[in-house]
């Protein structure tokens, strides 16, 4: 008899489906089109960040500095406009800063061969510190008149769908195209699966690693712009929050193993949906903050434990070395 095997993606999808059904049946006001849109809208930024993290994790790395890329360059845009610079000039400066930041990350990891966890931990602190010390007057950078019109990136609707969801969808399509349809995407999978074999076969692995971090930083910056537009300000203190753990959760929960080479955009979407459903349902039920954390923790633990029961580790997978 063939043993039933589920991978993590399917388990998480099952958990999501069960939760979704339970909420739909027992929670009045959950399964309405408006609420579904709100659900997605609330996790759109998290989802975009998940995409950035996915690219790096598939390439067998991790980017802890993602929240700094989310907070600092968009914060810089708001600050520069507040100080009287034009919006295009500010945006250009922010994008250049983001690219420079991604290049530093990539260089440290690909050429200086610093482990990605430590390299990005340090550079993230550096960028956030730079922002706090030199770029911003206050932690919360407020919207100013010069930004008029730009809030449409995160507010309002396009064809009845809230803009931030559209932005998430666009990001999904772009990243899916990059990973599945381009040679670079294939290289990222190859490097993530076996970096040494990839190098032997002639894949320019170092430049590709640099590219991963530049793209991740740019997506992080994009997520930050959507977030700033949606709340009309940039709370740069978000760097001190636990958002990065949520991002890693979305990725890992969705089934992109930290050992690299596996998963894709679909996994990020599933992970995001699970988190979104939980948050939305619990908000409707008016569960206290502590209670929400408890529920989140229990669901996540269940998913991880089920996975390790159904897919036990063997020598081969253990050698891949999670973090």
């Amino acid at each position, binding site marked *: 008899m063939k043993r039933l095997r589920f991978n993590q993606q399917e388990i998480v999808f099952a958990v999501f489906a069960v939760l979704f059904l339970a909420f739909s049946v027992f929670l009045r006001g959950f399964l309405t089109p408006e609420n579904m849109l709100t659900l997605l809208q609330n996790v759109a930024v998290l989802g975009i960040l998940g995409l950035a993290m996915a690219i790096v994790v598939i390439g067998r790395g991790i980017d802890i500095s993602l929240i700094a890329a989310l907070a600092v360059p968009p914060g810089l845009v708001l600050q520069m406009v507040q100080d009287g610079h034009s919006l295009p000039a500010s945006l250009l400066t922010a994008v250049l800063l983001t690219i420079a930041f991604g290049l530093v990350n990539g260089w440290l990891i690909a050429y200086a061969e610093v482990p990605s966890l430590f390299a990005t931990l340090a550079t993230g602190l550096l960028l956030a510190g730079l922002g706090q010390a030199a770029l911003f007057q206050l932690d919360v950078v407020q919207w100013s008149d010069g930004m008029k019109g730009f809030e449409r990136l995160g507010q309002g609707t396009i064809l009845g769908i809230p803009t931030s969801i559209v932005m998430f969808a666009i990001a999904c399509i772009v990243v899916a195209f990059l990973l599945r349809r381009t040679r670079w995407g294939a290289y990222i999978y190859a490097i993530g699966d076996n970096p040494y074999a990839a190098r032997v076969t002639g894949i320019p692995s170092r430049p590709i690693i640099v590219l991963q971090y530049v793209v991740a930083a740019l997506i992080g910056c994009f997520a930050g712009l959507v977030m700033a537009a949606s*709340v009309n300000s940039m709370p740069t203190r978000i760097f001190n929050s636990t958002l990065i753990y949520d991002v890693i959760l979305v990725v890992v929960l969705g089934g992109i193993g930290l050992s690299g080479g596996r998963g894709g955009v679909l996994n990020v979407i599933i992970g995001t949906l699970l988190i979104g459903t939980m948050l939305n349902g619990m908000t409707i039920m008016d569960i206290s903050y502590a209670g929400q954390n408890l529920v989140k923790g229990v669901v996540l633990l269940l998913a991880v434990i089920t996975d390790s029961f159904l897919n036990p580790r063997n020598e081969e997978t253990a050698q891949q070395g999670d973090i």
Partner: protein
Amino acid sequence: MKRVIRTAKILVATLGLAAIAGPALAQKGLDEPFQKPFKEALTGKTVAYVPVAMNFDLTEGWYAGLKKELEPFGVKFEIRDPNWNTNAGAQAVTSLISEKPAVMVIHNPDVQTYAKLLQRAENEGIYVIQINMGSAYRSSAFVGANWIEIGEKDTEAVVKACQGKSNKIAIVQGALSAAASAYTLKGVENVLAKHPEIKVVSSQAADWDAAKAKAITQTVLKQNPDLCGIVGFWDGMDIGTAAAVKEAGLTGKVFVATSGGGERKGACELVKSGAFDLNLSYDVPTQAAQMAGTIKWLLSSGAKPGSIKGSEYTTLIPITKENADSQTACWNLSDLKK
């Protein structure tokens, strides 16, 4: 008789002389006996300031205000920035106790963490002034907002706006561990106890985070589109609350009450734009001036630290559409820093 006249003449002459001599004496100046000891009491003294973090309107405003008031008197003004890290803050306070500044100005992250340390500081002869968020230990002075009053006034305004409407309100709390949030909630409860007709459809903590506040408010508004008011606990976070109300097209229909330090961009501008209907300001520059006044008084009094204890609760400025345009309702950080 003649003698009498003579005496009178002499008297008049003496008086006249005295009248001439009087101004001559005044030209020499008169020493005011108290200003010198005052100056001596301040010169060279160190005032240490430990906020929960710099880089936000409240703590930057207090810093600028204190600096402006104290440095001209030769007071050394030092700052320790724990950047939201309670442990780092406790370490800063501990090391300050051994450095023995004359005064410590402390912004507590919660009620318990610094309480014992502050008591020790006053026993060691350091005056402790607590600002805006007090600890369980009552020190020489507390200068700051009365959170219970803020909760009460915000809720009263929301309840009033709800009259004749659905009577459904939502509460967006700060961080659960913060005393300011818990006290404000108490104020909210005080008012709600008197108004049983009001139904709280959601009361959740958004962790002082605008994005979380927006997410919660969006969901609540979708479930209760007839919501008539929201009590928010801090304007920096309630930008998100207001953004959700605006996106739902309910600006003006849902009354948003919040509170904050009254910085122009964060308070008056947002009231003007209609994002907030009421923003209770605890007017940071006035608070800074009161702190500075208290420091001057304590240092010149020579009182033993911890022997006298008092409070200065801030008079709140309610910012509404009526006064949001005025020059005095809000303050500019850039001006205060000049």
